[in-house]
Each structure stands twice: as C-alpha cells, then as structure tokens.
C-alpha cells in the first residue's frame, strides 16, 4: 500500500481498523467529528459496527459493554465530551476492561472553543475520574505516528486489561499529511476467557464488575491495579530524544507542539545554541527517568505546552530541583509560533524561569 493523503481524524479510524478494531461507539464533537463520520462509512465495509450513541456518557458505557463482551472497541471525543466519560473510564479501569479512548483536545475550560489545545493533560494522565487508577496515554505528533500508536494502544489495552487513551489536539485531527499503512499480518488476538459473552457451556458464568462491598476485597483489587501500573511503568514508556547528546538545555514538548518546538530548536542550533528535545510519547507512564537523568547534565529545561502548564508538573517531579525548569505556553487554542518558541529558547541561556 502506498502513501495516502488523509485527515488525522480519519487516520485514527483507519489505524484502528488495521489494529483489528471494528467496533466504534461515538458522539460527534468538533474537532474530532471526522473520525466518527469515517467510522460510520468504513466499519460497515469491514463487517464491523458503528453506532452513534446518544451522548458521550452512553458511548463510553457502550464501550464498557462491548469490551466486557471481549472485542476490541474504541470511542472518541474532544475535551467537554471527554469530561463526561470520566465515570465510565473509572469503571473501565476498575473492572479491568481493555478499550481505546481518543481525546482530540480543544480550548477550554467549559465550552471554550474548537481550536487545538493540550489543556486536558491532567485529566488524562492523573485519572480524571474517581479512585486510584491510571490509564496509559499515547500522544502522537504526526499522522504517521498515529498509525503506530493506535496499534500500540490496542495492544497495551489487551495486554494489561486497561483502558488506554490516545491524546491529540484539533491540529492533529484536522490536518492532512501523507501516511502509509504498512501491511499488517493477520493478528491472532489472545482469547479473553474472562469476557462475558455467554458461557456456551464452557465453565461457570463469568462476572465483570468494579464493585467490592468489602474494603479488604476492594483493597486487593486496588493492589492488583497498582501492580499492573508498576509493570506498565517498567515496560511501556516511550520517549523520543533529539539532539540531546551535546545539549546544554533541553526543551520538553509532546504532540503537535513538539513539531513547532523541533523547528524552533533547529533554528536555535543554526545559531549555535546547544538545545535538545525530549518528546514524551507516552504521557503516562511519563518518561521521568530519562528526564531525571538528563537533568543532572543540563543547565536548564523548558517545557512548552498549549496549556497554562500541566505536563511541566511531571517534568518538575522528575527533575526534583536538579536543574531550573521553566515553562512556555499558550492557551485558548492559540498555537505558539516557531518564532515565539525560539524566543523562549533564547531566554533559556539567560537563566530566566517563568
């Protein structure tokens, strides 16, 4: 298969199908609606099912049902709609059900607007719902990377029985780039013996639940979850480092903004500044160790986000005071220009921390 030109939202849809997910429950919201429309068109073609739910709340609970029945399933939304899914995501985590949930972020809070933003970082990485849980969060920065990470998202979901979040922003969803779907070998999915799909006489009935009336039992469930999270932290961190070997300063950014940052860094390097880029690809688990290690060698770190400063908190947690951490961000859907990021980088040398 050669290159095709597609919108980011559509790439997510096609990538999911390539990852063996042919069930989708969604609700329209800008800037992710093309994904919903794409699935409406494509899934019937591959004998899958697209269903427009009556709301984001219904959609996430349909996903809960489909996941409990043992299939690969996906839903997607954008910020306000994602907030509505919090109870459901907590249920998925509690009941240990695999599913992939897409959030194509937009400006907030409230109704905000439909421009690109990264201000849902806390919500997706700290468990926006109730209870002690985390969800792996994958943050592609190009359309080609969407394909890889969507496939990874489904693998992680199944391997660990956990909901996984694919986080993008309006820019990633709306833009077009050539992408290539490399031929995927027919995958064998592991049987999900735990799924409630009708016993067919094969063993006793199964139960999917997140309820444990006894505190001791619920603590056991939580311990199991925490162990799982430790394992994921060990095995699933993804991060991209660029120009870090000789770097005196590091810029940390994820998703689309990392592209602007990369351009700005390249400009800075042309001017002789030794700047490196660390791009967390998984936001949870966060590449804290990589950052912690490098923080011992550099003069300062700058976090750039399309938010008022959220990921920077994880950077600070990783750095633990070992080097100054500064922040540059734009909010409300404003995309920072390469120029202004470059200006922020220039200040780095001067030891300014915002």
């Amino acid at each position: 298969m050669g290159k095709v030109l597609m919108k980011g939202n559509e790439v997510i849809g096609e990538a999911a199908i390539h990852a063996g997910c042919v069930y989708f429950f969604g609700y329209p919201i800008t800037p992710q609606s093309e994904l919903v429309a794409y699935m409406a068109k494509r899934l019937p073609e591959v004998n899958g099912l697209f269903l427009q739910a009556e709301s984001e709340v219904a959609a996430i609970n349909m996903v809960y049902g489909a996941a409990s029945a043992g299939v690969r399933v996906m839903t997607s939304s954008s910020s306000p709609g994602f907030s509505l899914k919090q109870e459901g995501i907590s249920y998925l985590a509690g009941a240990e059900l695999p599913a992939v949930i897409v959030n194509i972020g937009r400006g907030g809070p409230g109704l905000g607007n439909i421009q690109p933003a990264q201000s849902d970082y806390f919500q997706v990485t700290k468990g926006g719902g109730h209870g002690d849980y985390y969800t792996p969060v994958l943050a592609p920065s190009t359309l080609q990377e969407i394909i890889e990470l969507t496939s990874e998202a489904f693998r992680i979901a199944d391997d660990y029985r956990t909901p996984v979040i694919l986080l993008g922003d309006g820019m990633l969803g709306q833009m077009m780039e050539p992408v290539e779907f490399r031929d995927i070998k027919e995958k064998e999915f592991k049987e999900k013996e735990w799924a409630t799909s009708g016993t067919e006489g094969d063993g006793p009935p199964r139960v999917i639940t997140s309820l444990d009336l006894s505190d001791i039992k619920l603590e056991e469930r939580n311990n199991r979850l925490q162990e799982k999270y430790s394992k994921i932290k060990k095995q699933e961190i993804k991060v991209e480092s660029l120009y870090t070997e000789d770097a005196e300063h590091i810029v940390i950014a994820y998703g689309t903004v990392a592209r602007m940052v990369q351009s700005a860094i390249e400009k800075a390097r042309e001017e002789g500044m030794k700047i490196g880029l660390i791009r967390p690809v998984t936001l949870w688990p966060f590449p804290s160790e990589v950052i912690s290690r490098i923080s011992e060698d550099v003069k300062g770190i700058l976090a750039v986000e399309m938010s008022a400063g959220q990921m920077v908190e994880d950077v600070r947690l990783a750095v633990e005071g070992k080097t100054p951490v500064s922040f540059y961000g734009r909010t409300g859907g404003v995309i920072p220009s390469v120029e202004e990021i470059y200006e922020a980088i220039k200040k780095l040398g001067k030891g300014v921390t915002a």
Partner: protein
Amino acid sequence: MKQELIIAGFGGQGVMSMGQLLAYAAMKEGKEVSWLPSYGPEQRGGTANVSVVISDSKFGSPVIDRPTSLIALNNPSFQKFEPSVKEGGEIFINEDLVTVQSGRKDITVHLIPALTVANELNEQRTAGMVILGAFITKTGILKAESLLSALTYLLGTKKDHLIPVNRQAILRGEKIIRKALSSIN
C-alpha cells in the same frame, strides 16, 4: 525548495479543495507536505483558510506564521493575511473579487482575473484552478500535470468530463502569469 502557502477566501469558494489539490499533487511528486485548515462554525458565511506546506525535505510545523505565498480570494482574506506574508513573498489574488491593494513594497502581488477567465470557460468553478495554475507556474513548486492528476483523483471518475476544462483553466493561469512576468521584465 519549500513553499508555505495560505489560501483564504469565503467559505464555499473552494479554498479547502484548492489546498487539497496541491497537497495531493505534492505527495504524488514525492514531496513532504501538510495541509492544515481553519475549521469550525466561523466558516459559515465567514472566511475560511488553509495552510499548505510543500517542501523537498522534512519539516516540523504545519502551522504557517509567515507565509511565503498567499492566495487571497476576497477582500477580508487579503486584509487579514497580507501583513503576515514573508518579505520577498508573493500574493496571488482573484482580481475580480479583491479590490483592496497592498501597501507593502517588499512583496509581489499578482492580479489574476480568475472569475473572468472561468466565466470565459463557461465553468465558474474553475476560478480556483486558474489561480493555482498561476501559483505553480510562478513558484515552480509543482508540475501542472500533477495538479491535473490530483484533480482526477479527487473528483473521482464520475466527473471525468470536467478534466479538460480544468486543464484549460490551469493553462490560462499559467499564461496569465507568464505574460505578466514578461511584461515586468
């Protein structure tokens, strides 16, 4: 070579598909390319624009802060983006619709009577192709054939009959810009 182009106009003037044609053609020529639309309800009745980056080598940002080229299909778009054009950059306007003028001396403005030409071709919808013809000719960023095959692809086979008139439109655009250039020289 790298072009950072913004195309802007009223919603309904075909801004998005003009951008798509370029992006598709660029992909087919093996170039790096990105297409980033303005989106959302403000399109309705209001103005729409799309940013297209075409480059021989990999690039980072699909966002264009300072376009190297601007195609402006109406006055508000011209007024909005004209100041951001890079020095040495170029503006292609549909002179039938854009009446305001640039005060800048550091850029070149090409006036294309796209609607007039399209009407001559008896197909109003080819106005965009006229301008694109001018744009690729002037910048040399893409071949006319790539644009046409992009059109074939995007229109789908059912609208094959529209190809010839679009080819003519591109050629007319090419002609106009060549003439203008030669008259300047």
